[in-house]
């Protein structure tokens, strides 16, 4: 009998609908934690908007905005322990921030600083990945290390819809499944891989089902619903820690901005599509819920926005105030110790010699 994809039934998990009404079971989260999630999302959005403006002013380099994807990132990162490992792509500033990477680090990276990808000691994360899906096999290797060490740490790998077309993604899934590794592949399906729409990226009905052929369970979740993303990631984390193997989560979301500051999305996608997704804004939805639950009010909102502005001002100041760093330092980080040639070249740079 032929196995037909259309026989597969896939339903999207949702806890908060677009109006902010509870339509599923509330995850086990304290009010303080809910408000903390909201705070991260709001400040992250303010950061994103500010960095885009900094780029327009020529104060930072090319930047990949994440607005619209705050719920997918904050919700999933909240399901981790600090000791777990995160493998981000380049659009994962909020997830990294939740996991302990200060915003200053992310901004320094965007500014092209030599320490931009040096994450603080004790933060278990890889620097952002530029090569699409390059992080997937590395996350699998990290989860193999957990398996080897028996430390129960989970490796959470972020990737996008476009990355599911790459060979590394598939190789990684296969290895992780064969060895039942504690890896979670969180696909933020933001509908567009630069100019390529999701429908033309893959013939699969969903990206959640990408793991089925590898023997990996998958789930599709409303990626703009922070509670639903938290809930399904939590379930995947529990499976991973229990030694039950990897999971795939497809968080259906939308990249509200351009691919990067060098991109003009009006060339390939309609204003109407953007408008439709604006109605599903993850922050607006979560705020509605918190207001309904009387956990939030206009006064608190105003104070939070004020806090966000001040905090980001501090981040910009701290980043721009940091000494630029030197080319000489780069020579020190090629190998543990300088080779003969690197020593010669470093000395030449120091003396401002021409070669």
């Amino acid at each position, binding site marked *: 009998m032929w196995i037909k994809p259309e026989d597969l039934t896939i339903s999207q998990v949702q806890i908060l609908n677009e109006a902010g009404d509870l339509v599923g079971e509330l995850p086990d989260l304290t009010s303080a934690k809910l408000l903390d999630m909201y705070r991260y999302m709001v400040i992250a959005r303010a950061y994103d908007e500010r960095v885009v403006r900094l780029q327009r002013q020529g104060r930072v380099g090319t930047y990949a905005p994440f607005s619209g994807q705050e719920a997918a990132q904050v919700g999933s990162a909240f399901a981790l322990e600090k000791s777990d490992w995160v493998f981000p792509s380049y659009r994962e500033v909020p997830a990294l921030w939740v996991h302990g990477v200060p915003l200053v680090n992310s901004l320094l990276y965007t500014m092209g600083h*030599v320490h931009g990808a040096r994450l603080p000691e004790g933060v278990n994360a890889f620097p952002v990945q530029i090569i699409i899906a390059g992080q997937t096999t590395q996350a699998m*290797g990290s989860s193999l290390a957990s398996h080897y060490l028996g430390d129960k740490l989970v490796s959470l790998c972020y990737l996008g819809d476009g990355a599911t077309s790459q060979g590394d993604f598939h190789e990684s899934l296969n290895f992780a499944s064969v060895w039942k590794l504690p890896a979670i592949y969180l696909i933020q399906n933001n509908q567009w891989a630069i100019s390529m729409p999701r429908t033309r990226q893959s013939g699969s009905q969903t990206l959640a089902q990408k793991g089925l052929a590898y023997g990996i369970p998958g789930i599709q979740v409303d990626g703009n619903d922070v509670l639903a993303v938290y809930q399904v990631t939590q379930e995947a984390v529990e499976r991973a820690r229990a030694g039950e193997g990897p999971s795939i989560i497809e968080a259906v979301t939308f990249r509200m901005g351009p691919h990067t500051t060098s991109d003009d999305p009006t060339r390939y996608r309609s204003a109407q599509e953007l408008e439709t997704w604006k109605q599903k804004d993850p922050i607006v939805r979560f705020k509605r819920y918190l207001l309904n639950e009387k956990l939030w009010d206009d006064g608190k909102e105003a104070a939070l926005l004020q806090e966000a502005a001040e905090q980001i001002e501090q981040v910009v100041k701290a980043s721009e105030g940091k000494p630029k760093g030197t080319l000489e330092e780069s020579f020190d980080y090629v190998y543990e110790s300088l080779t*003969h040639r690197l020593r010669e070249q470093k000395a030449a740079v120091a003396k401002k010699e021409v070669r």
Partner: protein
Amino acid sequence: MAVINMIEAINQALAGELEHDERVLILGEDVGHAGGVFRATDGLQAKFGERRVIDTPLAESAIIGASIGLAARGLRPVAEIQFLGFIYETMDQLASQAARMRLRTAGRIHLPMVVRSPYGGGVRTPELHSDSLEGLFLHSPGIKVVMPSSPYDAKGLLIAAIRDPDPVLFLEPMKLYRAFKEEVPEDSYTVEIGKAKVVQEGEDLTLITWGAAAPVATAAAKAWQDKHGGSIEVIDLRTIVPMDEEAVVKSVEKTGRAMIVHEAVKSGGAGAEVAAIISEKCMFSLLAPILRVTGFDTPYPAFSVEDDWLPNATRITAAIQEMLSYR
């Protein structure tokens, strides 16, 4: 002292490091139960278990990506890529990922990982099994490239590579796996990465070589001396990255003549780098132009003609003659 061949020396090095350091693990295609297609890892899984000697599914890029993840978490993976011709599958993970990690993270993450791979011609392999691709990695800062040519060096360099804090590509000339035996200490020892070996001292010409080409070049030099007299200094670089410039310069300043013998294609090969070093550092010691005897600038040919493609005694001898008669 036991007299063993290169494959046995490599097996000893791996066994010793697995024994010595709980963080060391081996992964690759057919490395476990089967003991590797050349038996380099023979018996290791039986001795150290499936947890330490891991048979992977068949995907080279994932083997290297996994090694990066393992190394970043404090382990010391020794990956095998079954033949160097398959290394292109891993180029992103090796050249763009592993090699750059220390620099990208300004030292926060470093990757103590080894990638072993058999390479080289003359053994009648199918296509894409024989290529010498060290030049690709000479051009990729952040990764070391080690190419032994003897059992003793293979064991000492492999142990050094496994203990090295940075990624090391360890290239094993498959033609030499069982070509000859020599005395190799049973205990662990290291040979310093980045140090060339003076195979024989000489006054008239410096012959710089490494890996699979080294025994061929050395034999040609000895045969020349036996027949025509004179003395040829043979330097086995043993490591392509970092390259032992000092050994090359010191020798060429003494002899005034330099030729390079390697198996890889000529253009952009590591020999070009050696020639450039000589030009930059000791051009005024030169009594003759620098010559290279290498593979030709074709893709590696069908094996029925590989003996004519590889640098052989005839071509090396002709070059020696040309160099020594240059006025």
